């Protein structure tokens, strides 16, 4: 095991238990050709916490999320996950490592029902082969029952029973976002990545989403990393915040610390040049 910060975590003011370090980014640099999307960034994610990444447009937040998920492999620096340095992975390996995500622009199967969409989140829990699946024989039907049960629990948890059989294409935006969250949760991830979960939502939908994110974290202890533009949401939800600007990290700490950070204020509000 590589040595990471070896403290055991702490208890938050509202009684949640934050564990040790789950993932550590060490001096990450990511380039696309000549464009440097992320420049020498280091930070960590602890088990059980809600970690936010904020920053103006084009700051490199979504790229950072893709690095965390393992979809992008940075040119420099290393990612330490569960105590081990993570190698470059193939997409299916990425999917199997216990990190699930939602997307900024919803990426659901529009023609399929909500239930089927969420079931796809359980794909890697199903071991039956194609013949068994096709004949609905042996392991296939047994697995379907087990996984359906898990999916129904999530449907109940996110209060989407009424749209269980509705094709996703017919749903309003706010509900689609919730279905996407459900699909990510169905994978039983150890780390959940949310890319702008509240984008384009009205106040009521945002409130609902906030409650679900907190409930998920509270109930399943899921470590959550989220990108969000709505400052109110970020400051209320998260335990710690990373602030990025032009691919660089300009702040890192609790919401209060970040709020008082000069660089952060400058990046968000600009400063007068007189």
């Amino acid at each position, binding site marked *: 095991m590589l040595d990471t910060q070896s403290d055991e975590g702490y208890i938050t003011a*509202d*009684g*949640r238990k934050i564990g040790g370090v789950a993932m550590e980014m060490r001096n990450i640099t990511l380039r696309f050709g000549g464009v440097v999307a992320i420049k020498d960034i280091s930070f960590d994610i602890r088990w059980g916490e809600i970690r936010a990444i904020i920053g103006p447009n084009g700051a490199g937040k979504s790229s950072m999320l893709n690095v965390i998920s393992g979809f992008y492999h940075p040119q420099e620096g290393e990612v330490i996950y569960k105590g081990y340095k993570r190698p470059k992975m193939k997409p299916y390996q990425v999917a199997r490592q216990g990190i699930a995500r939602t997307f900024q622009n919803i990426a659901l199967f529009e023609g399929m029902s909500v239930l089927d969409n969420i079931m796809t989140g359980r794909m890697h829990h199903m071991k039956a082969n194609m013949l068994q699946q096709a004949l609905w024989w042996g392991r296939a039907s047994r697995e379907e029952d087990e996984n*359906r*049960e898990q999916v*129904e*629990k999530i*449907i*109940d*948890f996110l*209060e989407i*029973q*009424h749209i*269980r059989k509705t094709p996703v294409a017919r749903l309003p935006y706010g509900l689609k976002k919730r279905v996407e969250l459900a699909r990510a949760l169905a994978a039983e991830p150890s780390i959940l990545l949310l890319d702008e979960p509240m984008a384009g939502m009205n106040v009521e939908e945002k*409130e609902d989403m906030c409650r679900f994110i907190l*409930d998920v974290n*509270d*109930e399943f202890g899921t470590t959550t990393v989220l990108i969000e533009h709505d400052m109110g949401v970020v400051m209320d939800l998260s335990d710690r915040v990373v602030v990025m600007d032009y691919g660089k990290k300009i702040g890192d700490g609790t919401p209060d610390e970040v709020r008082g950070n000069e660089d952060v204020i400058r990046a968000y509000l600009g400063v007068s040049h007189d």
Partner: protein
Amino acid sequence: MSTTETLGDLCSIPALLARNAKRYGMQAAYREKEFGIWQAWTWAETQAEVRAMALGFLVLGMREGDYVAIIGRNRPALYWAMVAAQSVGAIPVPLYQDAVAEEMAYVLDHCGARFVICGDQEQVDKVLEVQEKVTCIEEIAYLDKRGMRKYDHSHMNWLQDVMREGRAAETRLGADLDQRIAALTLDHTCVMLYTSGTTGKPKGVVLSNRNIIVTSKNSSEFDNLRAGDEILAYLPMAWVGDFIFAIGQAYWTGFCVNCPESAQTMLTDLREIGPTYYFAPPRVFENMLTTVMIRMEDASPLKRRIFNHFMSFAREVGPKLLDGKPVGPGAKLKYALGNLLVYGPLKDTLGLRRIRVAYTAGEAIGPEIFDFYRSLGINLKQLYGQTEASVFITQQPDGEVRSDTVGVPSPGVEVRIAESGEVFYRSPGTFESYYKNPESTASTKDAEGWVATGDAGFFEEGSGHLRIIDRAKDVGKMADGSLFAPKYVENKLKFFPNILEAVVFGNDRDRCVAFINIDLTAVGSWAERNNIAYSSYQELAGLKRVLDTIQEHVEQVNQSVAQDKMLSGCQIHRFLVLHKELDADDGEMTRTRKVRRRIVEEKFADLIDALYAGKDSIYTETEVTYEDGRKGKLKATLELRDARVFGQPAARMAAE
């Protein structure tokens, strides 16, 4: 079961439960859809669950005579909690789950509830908020564990834990519980229900075992309810009707109570269960019909033609067939064909295929809506009742069903009409008293047991059916002395699908004016079909074409009101379409969605003044309460319109 069964020792709900567990042990008593699957409990299982819960309550220190508040959506475990509390000797007090914390505080404080059983975290939060002021609450139990882990559990329990402790205490407390159940008599309080109160603070209506059980027995026999029947329990548990249907009648006859998965899935669940006995307020039937009509508009021309053809045929023949009146063989054959092509599939889609008896009450139902269901062969009937009567005052017997009456007095009920036109009744279901409120009890119920309903009505010559005109206190006089019956006019307005709610003013004035609420579903769908864009309720309500349509409706109503000599003074001279929906959260309606006339009158006094002053438009600000309790302000400029009024036919003839 025999329809003439006598009461015997069946003098409490727990006693009925014991009988059912013996007689219908393996039949389903409760079903609830959870995790997408219908879970069932037999009567025997139900008895075991209730017993465990009752023992658990004893362990927690519940005493005889305690008040136990129950707040949540319809779920088997919450019904069991009521029966479990009764078994201990305590009195269940179901509360409206959508009540805001302040409303809850009053009721909890008034009854001095020591125990509160909550459905989920949302209700627990409200109770905790209330607890800062209301000190009587000692223990809280909750059913849904979600989100509850972090709460201080020193005086809080998961209901499953309560039951587990109860089961463990069987040997220690079992005999005590048996004694408590055996000690219950017909005179013990069965339940206390708070009336939603169109005026003033809610009142706690105390109903005894006699009230509930005798009423349930009579009404079950009236409609031949039997053990195999199915109902869907989806109406608020705090409402007397739900208590009578889902507990009183269910325990008396032993039929099965089905609880939907959530409020939004109600219609799907209705279809899956296919109840045989069904109650819904007119609003639900209206909404169903509106949805059917909207969907038919979108259907292919052929389907639409088939639908229209057979529906107009059904309107002639359907009600006759249902009432057992003679119908020619050709018509019978055609109706059977229609049943195959239209009525059957439609009833199936609505989940009403297996209905033997359906009731509606609470408000007047539009004749078109009523006839629509009757013509499909659904035995929809009306009843008239109130909390103080344990529901039933009058109801319609099979074969004598009409949309404009509320039927004949229910078995065991006496009804008389006072000089003033107010309806009085006396029955075995007549409530004991208002809790801690002897003045109100005395003013409502006289020494001989007659209760004033507060409604004005009359018995129709010939048929002996009761007809209700309006709330007695709302029936007033216009400035020229003619009769003012706002409800009569409002109902006529509300029969238009585009109009959700209407409030008519005119007491002591020289003419009437009205507020209208449009129906978002119907008008919204119309706007969509006509490519009219709108971003909010407020904007839609202010569109010129919407106002034109509403004006047509108002004028049609005026024309029909003008036909009635007594009420022709109630024609609407001016009206406006409100910029917000009347809402219980803002206090404008009761939780059962009846308009609180006085409050609306006070709150929108500026609008009424403007209508009478003859202005063309007015700017107004209204305070609104959001679902989470926060307040906001709504600003709008409303257009005020004149409507054509019609002369009285008789009067005009006299002048000629």
